Every structure is written in structure tokens, then in C-alpha cells.
């Protein structure tokens, strides 16, 4: 389908351009339920990082608490990871990113972790446009505490026990777009074809990339009346546009425009090519993006793919005007004004 997808047939054997094999991006064996959507996302993350040839140790994995938040243990065993507390991944990510702007930050959260207890932090990390990838593994329920509805459960959705959810559902993508995220996408754990390039594009974007990935909980929320079930998503999904992602090293030598209806160049000169069914509204128009989302919702359809990109977004460091050198690498000479200055300061207080 996509001309850019690497053709390695046996990725475990053939290394990527940085010399890492796919196995170098794997993690511990998952302890999640067999069939859990989260495991598929885990493997898409592995694939995306492998394909992008990211050095694993330059990635930091962060998460909150929940089945979803356990996944960082199951990918990228060569990356430092931080499984923090419930709903507070964004704060940890913000601090970590402030300390070292040179690493890649990959945050994983759940819909409970983000849309309930973590709502405040979600809103504000988006608003600050922190340079990170923020993935919500969205199953509409609290997996780890055994299946309570979460705030992303759709109104009218039915749980395994038959209870109908009457509360409004929170659309995290729409919120993220509204709040100024630079990159927003939605996908489905069951569709690696879409998820992998989406992840790659998100990893290359400068600023906050938010990905809402519907990820069925087979144990507690996979009955067909649940809008977060494999069945429902497969039936109601629509793709915004086909997506090719061409990382910056390749863009220099290649032109991949055939058939693409829109090409968006990111900060690092990677390019996203979109293949839309018809030449629709541009994905870089914030209001259009929201409108398109709402349109699909009104029709009872779930729109997936890249939903919005602002290729020029400024991240938190840009906004704070911090130096290019990672703050955690500054030496005492760069940090401490010294005794002589202190004498002058003392003087000013006499």
C-alpha cells in the first residue's frame, strides 16, 4: 500500500540503518491478557522505532498506572522507563523533557489515567505543547481495576454486564486539537498498517503528538455493544486518509508524491504524505479538523488517521526560551555565578 514501508521480511535478522535489529526494540514478555489491544500497540511501537532506526537508549518511556501503563515494560528494554503514579505521566514527562531536551519522550497512558484522574495534566501538557509522543491506549474502561467505565466510554455504550453508560464521552482528540496540540491522530490497535506510520510521524513531530488508539479490553469491554470493542471499531471505522511517512534522511533523496493529495513537511524535514479519498480540507486547519471529527461523530462513525498537524508548532522549550544544551548537562561553571557575584548581591542587601 505504501511505497515507503520498508520491505524487510524478517526484521529480527536484518538490522535497520542504525544497526539495531527489531529485537533490540522489544521488551519483557507481556503479562497482559491474551488478545489485549495494548499488546498490539506495543508491537506497533516496536516496529515504528525499529523502522525509524531510533537508538533505543535515546528514548525515554513514561507512563502512569493501568494495564496500558504497564506496556513500557514490554517494549524498548534498552530505554530507561518510568512507570509513575496514576494520571501523572505528563508531569514526569515535562520535568524529564525540561532536564534533557535531546531525548525522545514516549508517554503511554490509559483512558482512565488520562481522561479521569489525569485530565488536568493532560490539558496542560498539551497546552504547553511538550515535545513528546503521548499515546492513550483507549479501551473505554479501567482494565486494571476490573472494568469500570472510563470517561471515554461512549454515551449509550453497553458494558459486558449490560449497564448502559449515560454520561457524555470525552473525545480526547478533539480536546487536544482545541488545546493547541501540534499533532493529533487516532488509530486502532487492530490496524498496524495505519498505526505504525502514524507513530513514526508522531515521533518526528516537534511538539506534542497526541495519539488516541482504540485498544479493546478483551476481558472487560469487548462485547459488541461496546464502542471500544474489536467488533464495533471494525464496523464503524473510517480512515481520514492513507498515510505515508518519510523520515528526513530519506526525503532528501526521494520524492514520494505520487497520488498524495497533501504533503506536510515537519520540523526535522521529514514529510507526511496523505492519500485522501477526495481532496478534502487540509489537515493543517485546526477548525476544519474539529469539524471533520464532529461530522463523523454525528454519523456514528469513528474517524482515524492523522487528524491535525501544525508543522510549525513551538514546544515548551521554545516558549520558555531555554538554551539548546540539555540542562542536565550543564556544569557548575555554567550554573553557578560564583562567590564574587554573591559578594555583590550581599552588598545590594546592605
Amino acid at each position, binding site marked *: 500500500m505504501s511505497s515507503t514501508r520498508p520491505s524487510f521480511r524478517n526484521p529480527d535478522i536484518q538490522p535497520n540503518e542504525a544497526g539495531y535489529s527489531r529485537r533490540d526494540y522489544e521488551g519483557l514478555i507481556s503479562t497482559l491478557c491474551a488478545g489485549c489491544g495494548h499488546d498490539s500497540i506495543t508491537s506497533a511501537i516496536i516496529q515504528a522505532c525499529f523502522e525509524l532506526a531510533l*537508538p*533505543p*537508549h*535515546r528514548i*525515554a518511556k*513514561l507512563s502512569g498506572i493501568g494495564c496500558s501503563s504497564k506496556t*513500557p*515494560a514490554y517494549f524498548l*528494554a*534498552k*530505554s*530507561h*522507563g*518510568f*512507570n*509513575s*503514579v496514576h494520571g*501523572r505521566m*505528563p*508531569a*514526569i*514527562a*515535562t*520535568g*524529564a*523533557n*525540561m*532536564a*534533557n531536551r*535531546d*531525548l525522545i519522550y514516549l508517554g503511554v497512558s490509559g483512558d482512565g489515567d488520562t481522561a479521569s484522574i489525569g485530565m*488536568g*495534566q493532560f*490539558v*496542560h501538557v498539551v497546552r*504547553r505543547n511538550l515535545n513528546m509522543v503521548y499515546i492513550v491506549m483507549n479501551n473505554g474502561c479501567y482494565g486494571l481495576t476490573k472494568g469500570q467505565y472510563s470517561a471515554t466510554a461512549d454515551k449509550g455504550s453497553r458494558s459486558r454486564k449490560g449497564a448502559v453508560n449515560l454520561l457524555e464521552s470525552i473525545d480526547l482528540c478533539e480536546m487536544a486539537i482545541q488545546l493547541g496540540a501540534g499533532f493529533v491522530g487516532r488509530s486502532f490497535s487492530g490496524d498496524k498498517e495505519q498505526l505504525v506510520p502514524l507513530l513514526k510521524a508522531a515521533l518526528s513531530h516537534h511538539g506534542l503528538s497526541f495519539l488516541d488508539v482504540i485498544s479493546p479490553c478483551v476481558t472487560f469491554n469487548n462485547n459488541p455493544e461496546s464502542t471500544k470493542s474489536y467488533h464495533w471499531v471494525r464496523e464503524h471505522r473510517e480512515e481520514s486518509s492513507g498515510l505515508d511517512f518519510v523520515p528526513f534522511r530519506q526525503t532528501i533523496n526521494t520524492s514520494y508524491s505520487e497520488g498524495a493529495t497533501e504533503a506536510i513537511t515537519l520540523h526535522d524535514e521529514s514529510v507526511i504524505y496523505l492519500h485522501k479519498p477526495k481532496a478534502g480540507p487540509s489537515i493543517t486547519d485546526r477548525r476544519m479538523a474539529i469539524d471533520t471529527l464532529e461530522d463523523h461523530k454525528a454519523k456514528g462513525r469513528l474517524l482515524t488517521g492523522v487528524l491535525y498537524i501544525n508543522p510549525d508548532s513551538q514546544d*515548551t*522549550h521554545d516558549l*520558555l*526560551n*531555554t*538554551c*539548546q*544544551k540539555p*540542562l*542536565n548537562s*550543564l556544569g*557548575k561553571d*555554567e*550554573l*553557578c*555565578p*560564583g*562567590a564574587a557575584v*554573591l*559578594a555583590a*548581591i*550581599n552588598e545590594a*542587601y*546592605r
Partner: protein
Amino acid sequence: MNKIEGTNDFVIRFATVNGSGSASANNLFARSLFRMGLAVSAKNIFPSNIQGLPTWYEVRVSTSGSLARRGGVDMVVAVNGQTLRQDYVSLEPGGYFFFDSSKQLPEDFTRSDITLIGIPLTLLVNEAFAGSKQRPLLQNIVYVGAVAALLDMDLSMLKNGIGRQFAKKPALAEANLKALELGHSYAREHHADACLLRVRGNRRTDNAIMMDGNTAAALGALYAGATVVGWYPITPSTSVIEAFARYAGRFRLDEEGRLRVAIVQAEDELAAIGMVIGASWNGARSFTATSGPGFSLMNEFLGLAYFAEIPAVLINVQRVGPSTGMPTRTQQSDVLSCAYASHGDTKHVLLFPSTPAECFELTATAFDLAEELQTPVIVLSDLDLGMNEHVSPPLEWNDELAYQRGRVLDAVALAVLAEKAEKWGRYLDRDGDGIPWRTLPGTDPERGVYFTRGTSHNEFSGYTEDSAEYVKNMQRLSLKWETAKLKVPAALIQVGETTPGFATSPGLIYYGTSYAAVEEAAALLAQDYGLKPAILRLRAFPFGPEVADFLKQHRPIIVVEQNRDGQMRQLLINECSNECGVAPVDVLSLTLYDGMPLASREVLSGLRQLLDEHGLPEASSQSRQGESA
């Protein structure tokens, strides 16, 4: 009537309205006294409100050199109608009631034991500055000028101060100088001999500075190399961050004019401490400043930092609790909640600065300790220390000393380990002191990676639900706590003298901002009763062995603190009594927690009462004047 008299030894209270510019005039007055070399203490007693409510500013000068609030008011400058009566009543017999005589005093203001000093502030200003928008501000300078005249105070320092303040606005400088003269000459003319309080320059405070503790703490963080700040505004801690940002803007710019610091105003305190933990995990020195309510919100994250062993520096500028309490009053009531913050078995390192110089020093130390011990360190300041300007030794820094960054393995160290085939695990106790070695994200492509978690983990940071592994880890944390006892700043001890009538010399224990009042009260005890207690000033929790020793040697022990429940006393008993065998009944509590900066008179009378039962002798010399308040 006996007028209160004295040179360089009195308390003046300015009673004004907040948001009216009086703060800067009062400050000018206090700082001028300081510049004259006097031992001055200045306390701003302000409301939790932006504008229009009563504020007091209490200035004390002492010949003995005490920097404590004394208690009692010798002169009140009562220029706030809302509190006129209260201010009138508050005055000591023999004191001076300074008021705006543009209006009549109420008829029932009939005290015969005080001296009235009326100055028609409003009229004077209206006349001299007709049409000026600055009138309300200038009126404040008028009373300063008048007070200076009453005290027979040399105007030069005040004039200098005005000059400094308005260096870039000569027109304003001129108006202010005029206002100063206006008050001064009016008072000279009309109240020439009314007041027997005097001010004479001396050199008591050579080399000292006059600074608020929050600025000093901010500088401590700056000097210690803090680069990431997560914070949320809350009185009285906000100015720590404001000062830090100000100085960072001056001293932390790179060649391109970019900041070598990231200061993030968080959405709340949960996020603020989370950012600190994230940054510290990633190898930056990072801190936050907050106060009670904010601290309560940080409980969950502090448990994570304790258990996952992540450095974090937190400055808690305490205010009056519980709950929102009195946000603009001072207290030392977060001791217990800081010591044991978070669910589960947790303990945190606390530091207790007493002066701005120590706010600087201990904040800087906090960064070393946090990284050496890999745990949160909480600097417990308070509103009095943090927001009032204190006369303090100057801030001191030794350029020779390196930052103590603790046990961090870089790529080279990891390679060496690998070569030697030595084992490393994030939570492995290689050195037998409970402190493990950590690595930073991004260090090395192959080595030193680990997974940080708040869940139970084994020595290699693997998730575990194994009972034995869990217990082993918890015991190592206890061992680390023992190690911390020897690393934290030791308590400072003044030896007492054996006291007639007491089996041993009594022992006074205090901490933090209580120092000036306690030291003065102890000196008075010695002077008036010949009783010279041993004194221990705590500077850190956990307590070093010197604390248990002290507890063993003295009877009774009195712990002076600014909270209701004797929180530090509880910590002392919890942590030391097994070692030193002290019986809790021998550890008395003097708790003064009304929210006002501690006054030496209150401490003295509290001590006397407690010691009486143990046979405090009769006052040997004359009881001090006014001390009965």
C-alpha cells in the same frame, strides 16, 4: 506618667492599610535603621487580601543585638482608621500614640498613661502636594519623616534610601524628600520633646545583610545549580520562585541570550512536584517551593520519590494551618506531615534554616543531600523567615567546593564495571550503606538501563511481589535512613551551666525561625535568674547522634516550637527515645502558635512557667522593664 525611654531599644508599630504604599515607606524606615548599624527586626503583619485591609509593620531595635520580635508596642503610628481603637489599646503604658490629627480622635480615647502625638498628615500632604496623584504614597513618607524627628534620628540614611529607590525618577525622589522633610519639620516644631525614644547610629550589624529568607533560598538554589523548577503560586512561597526567576534572568543566560533554566508554572502542586521528580530522575537539579495546602497535594508523589529513590528538593514555606488557615501568618506546623508524608512506611529528610544566610546554605545543601541520598529533601522555612527581611550574616559561598552529585554511573563508569564483571543493579546496595547507584536516561546504548517504578522492585529494579525481596528493599531504605543521620547538618549546641536547684542544666531545643526569640529569652533567663540552659538548635531531620546525647544529658528538656501539637517533640521522642531512653514526661513542650512571629517575651514567660515546677529561682536582678506584657 513614666514615658518609655531608651536609645536603640524600642518597638514601633505602623498601623496602615494594605495596598496603600505604606509597605515601602515602612521598609525604608527599617532599612535605614539597619544601615545605621542597629540590630533591627521588622515584621510585616499583613492580611490575606490585596488592598484595603489593615496591615501592621512592627519594627524593633534592640541594644542587646537581639533580632527577635520582642512583644509589646512602645510607639504606634496609627494611620489606619479601621484599627485606631485596637492600636490605641495595644500600646504599652508610657508609650506613644502617633496619629493623623487631621481628624479628631474619638472622645473616649482617654488613656492617661500614654503620650499622644498628633500630626495632621492628610492636611499637610493635601496642602503641600495639591493635585498630585502621589498623595497617598507621600503621606506615608511624611509619617516616616515625623517619626524620625521624634526619635531624633539622623535623616541621611532615609534620604539615601529615597535616592536609591527613585534613582531613575528624579521628580519622584524630590517629592519624597520633600515629604520627608515635611513630616520631620512638623514634628520637630510641634512635638520637640514629646518622645524619649532615641536612635543613634552604631556598628552592631557590620557586614550583615538585610534580606528575606525566600530570596536567600532562591539564591541557594541558583548557586547549587538548580535548572528545572516546577511550581504553583501560593503565599508565602511564591517569592522564592520570583526571586529565582529574577536572578536566573541575570546569571543564567547563555551566549545566545537563552536561559540555562526552565521554570514551569504548573497547573497545580501535584504537577509541580511531578515535574521536579521527572527532571531529577533525568539528572537535572530541580526544585519546587510551596506551602501547606500545596504540600498536602504532593503526598502521593513524595511517596513515589521516596520509594523509587529519586532526588527532589522542596522548599515548604510554612503558614498557619490547618487547611487554608491564615495564609499570611507564620507557623511551624507542617513538621509531622513533612516528616512522614505519603501512605506506607515513608520518612523524609527535613532541613530547618534559621536565618536568610541559612536559607541560602541549607537550600544549597538540600541539593547535595537529595542527590547523595537519592530521596526528597524538604527545606522547612516559614512565612516569618521567608517573607520578612531579617538582619542576617551575609550569604557565603566557597567556589572551591564541587557539587555533590551522588552516586551516578556514567558511560565510562559502566564500562569499567562491565570490565571488572561487577554487578550493578539500580537498587543493589554495593556499598553497604543503603545508598544504591543510579544511571541517567540516555547514558549508554547497552548498559545501565533500568525501569523506574513506584511498585515493589528487586535490586535490579524488576517488578516483584516476592515478600523477601520487598522486605529486603525496605530494610535497605531503613539503612539508608541511618546513613542519612550522619550526612545531614548536625544540630548546634551551646553548653549550659549547672544550675542551682536543678540536677542537670535544663536543655532547650528549638529550630528554624524561633532562634532569635529563644536565644534572647535564654539570655534573659541567665541574666534574671542565673539559669543558663544548654541549647540545641536542630538543623535537620533525621537527628544525628548528638541529639540523643543531648536528650540524655539534660533535665528537663523543653522543646520550643510554633505549633499546637508539639510536632517536633513527637519526632524527637519517636526517633531518639529508644536510643537515649529519655522518658517523654521529661520532654516538655512550649508551643506558641498564634501566627505571629515569635516574641522573646512570650518565650521567656513560657519558659519560666515550665521551669517553675522544677524550681526556678526567684528573679535575681530587677525584672525587666515592660516584661510583664
